[in-house]
């Protein structure tokens, strides 16, 4: 077996293999070790793949040996190679972190199911990203969704169940819409392979079926990536899921859906069709703007940190979608770079919130008085990544917001640029208030100090700081991610070869 040649398959096969093995092993620690090891190998494969793509361009891997439109293929270019890297990296980091928090929040007898579900979720997300076949997207979307419902339902509060159920209803409607969209595309073009489809759509464009397919895919993917009017499922799901799951999902799930959105709008339908003929901007841009303005405002009024960050996630998705709406190389670059940066920051934030949850047992903003004295490392981590979320210079958030505003200016959309700044101001408020409470507010006198308060365990702090290190690195040396994002944007705008 030639490893270098099999990398695209290994990225999927490894986590897929780990899930049934977890079910067979059924030992909590061993399952965790297996999952971490698998995530590591997957990450290394993704890294190898990324380097291959960077060196040699697009990789096409015909599964089953059947050449492209007849069979299913993996189609790896810069855009999805970097997504694979992001997803597998976040999975690795969060899994390392998860051990303690899972041990505390999940019944021991179910640990193996938890890790199996995690591996399945990883498989699904990577599978959506890497595939070059439209129907295959649906299949892997369902793998990731079902395992997500299960992971969310692991939450200790009973509201995790209703959150999971509501997500299931919304997610099933979204997936069904995607299925309808793919069906109409198939009717119009006769093919399921994305590259082949992209080649055939120009001839079929006049058909109404393509228009309907476009609308249904848009709505389905908007549900899945939680764009404004369809974001309802996200807040509860993020708030009540176990915190490790929230950290993982916040960094990957909506991002992968956004990637699929990109793929369909820019590579398959083509920029011309999506934005020139369908006037996607008319629908999507207002939704995006409302997302980042309104939900940043909503975030200010949340007293629970997890819920606040969940709303902030929807707002950030708004930035990314607004960047896509620019439909220029610069805008797409900003969107993609923000997918990465936000994935990293939000995961780090949820991890630090998880540390607080681990020690305090809750995450109410108003009871975090003077937390710095008891949990200095956690608080510092929260502050650093919070600054990144706001977009302070020298953080990753700055890189992406700067690029986004630059792109808006370039296109002459001054208002959008201004609104992004305004919404950053809201972010200053909601993050700033938490920081203020944690740093300066004195412990109220008549409240007994929490017993046994100490810093979160090392096994949680180390992965968290590793992630923060990465975010600082990419904040200072933003050109690396920017150049990758630019290459990805060019690939997406260029369509399929």
């Amino acid at each position: 077996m030639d490893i270098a040649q099999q990398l695209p398959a290994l990225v999927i096969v490894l986590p897929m293999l780990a899930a049934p093995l977890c079910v067979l092993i059924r030992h909590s620690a061993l399952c965790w070790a297996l999952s971490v090891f698998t995530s590591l190998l997957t990450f290394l494969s993704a890294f190898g793949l990324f380097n291959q793509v960077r060196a040699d361009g697009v990789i096409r891997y015909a599964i089953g040996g059947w050449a492209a439109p007849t069979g299913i293929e993996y189609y790896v270019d810069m855009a999805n190679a970097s997504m694979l890297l992001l997803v597998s990296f976040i999975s690795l980091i969060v899994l390392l972190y998860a051990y303690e928090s899972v041990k505390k929040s999940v019944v021991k007898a179910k640990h193996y199911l938890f890790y199996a579900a995690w591996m399945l979720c990883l498989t699904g997300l990577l599978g959506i990203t890497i595939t070059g076949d439209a129907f295959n997207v649906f299949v892997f979307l369902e793998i990731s969704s079902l395992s997500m419902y299960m992971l969310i339902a692991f939450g200790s509060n009973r509201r995790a169940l209703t959150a999971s159920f509501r997500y299931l209803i919304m997610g099933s409607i979204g997936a069904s819409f995607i299925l309808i969209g793919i069906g109409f595309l198939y009717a119009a073009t006769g093919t399921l392979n994305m590259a082949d489809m992209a080649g055939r759509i120009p001839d079929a464009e006049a058909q109404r079926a393509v228009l309907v397919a476009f609308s249904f895919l848009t709505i389905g993917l908007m549900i899945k990536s939680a764009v404004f009017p369809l974001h309802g499922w996200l807040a509860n799901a993020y708030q009540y899921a176990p915190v490790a799951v929230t950290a993982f999902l916040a960094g990957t799930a909506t991002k992968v859906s956004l990637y699929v959105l990109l793929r369909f709008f820019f590579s398959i339908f083509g920029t011309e069709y999506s934005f020139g003929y369908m006037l996607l901007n008319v629908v999507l841009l207002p939704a995006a703007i409302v997302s980042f303005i309104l939900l940043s405002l909503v975030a200010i009024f949340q007293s629970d940190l997890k819920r606040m960050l969940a709303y902030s996630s929807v707002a950030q998705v708004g930035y990314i979608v607004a960047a896509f709406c620019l439909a220029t190389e610069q805008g797409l670059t900003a969107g993609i770079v923000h997918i990465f940066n936000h994935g990293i920051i939000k995961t780090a934030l949820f991890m630090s919130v998880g540390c607080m949850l681990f020690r305090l047992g809750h995450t109410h903003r108003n009871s975090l008085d003077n937390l710095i004295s008891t949990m200095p490392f956690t608080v510092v981590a929260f502050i650093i990544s919070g600054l990144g979320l706001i977009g302070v210079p020298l953080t990753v958030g700055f890189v992406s917001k700067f690029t986004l505003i630059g792109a808006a200016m370039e296109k002459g959309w001054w208002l959008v640029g201004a609104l992004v700044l305004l919404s950053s101001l809201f972010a200053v408020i909601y993050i700033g208030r938490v920081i203020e409470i944690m740093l300066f507010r004195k412990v109220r006198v008549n409240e007994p100090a929490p017993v046994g308060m100490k810093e979160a365990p090392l096994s949680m702090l180390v992965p968290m700081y590793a992630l923060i290190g990465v975010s600082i690195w990419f904040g200072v040396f933003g050109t690396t991610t920017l150049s990758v994002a630019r290459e990805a944007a060019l690939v997406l705008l260029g369509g399929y070869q």
Partner: protein
Amino acid sequence: MKLYVRQRHRVLQVVTKLIIPFVLLFALYVQFHGDYGPGGGFQAGVLFASAFILHGLIFGLQRTRSVLTPSLLRVLMALGVLIYLGTGIVTMLLGHNLLDYAALAANPKTGQHWGIFAVELGVGVTVTAVMVSLFYSFASKRL
């Protein structure tokens, strides 16, 4: 009263006892005849499972569970996925792409035959195990 209770569903029980072997046989037929007629691993799995479900409905879950124990089900569930994926991994180890059954034999057509056979078996095993375990989960209200 006791006598009456015991005799209550005698007809159903006898009929079911007669039917179940044929259902299993039919499931096997569907599993292995899927290449030539309608059917395949998935349908066969569901039929296998429905035989056990029928048994559970008529004779009670306790008895069914002593035939097909929950831990066995869990193993089978994972085993089916492993058979399917294992076929893919074997083809990769033999130097071909994932799930390229042509690698399994010298003649690609024979390879396809072997591959599809193995894969359908995997599908059948997982589907049977999952469907029966779903029935167990949803039917064990008073256990």
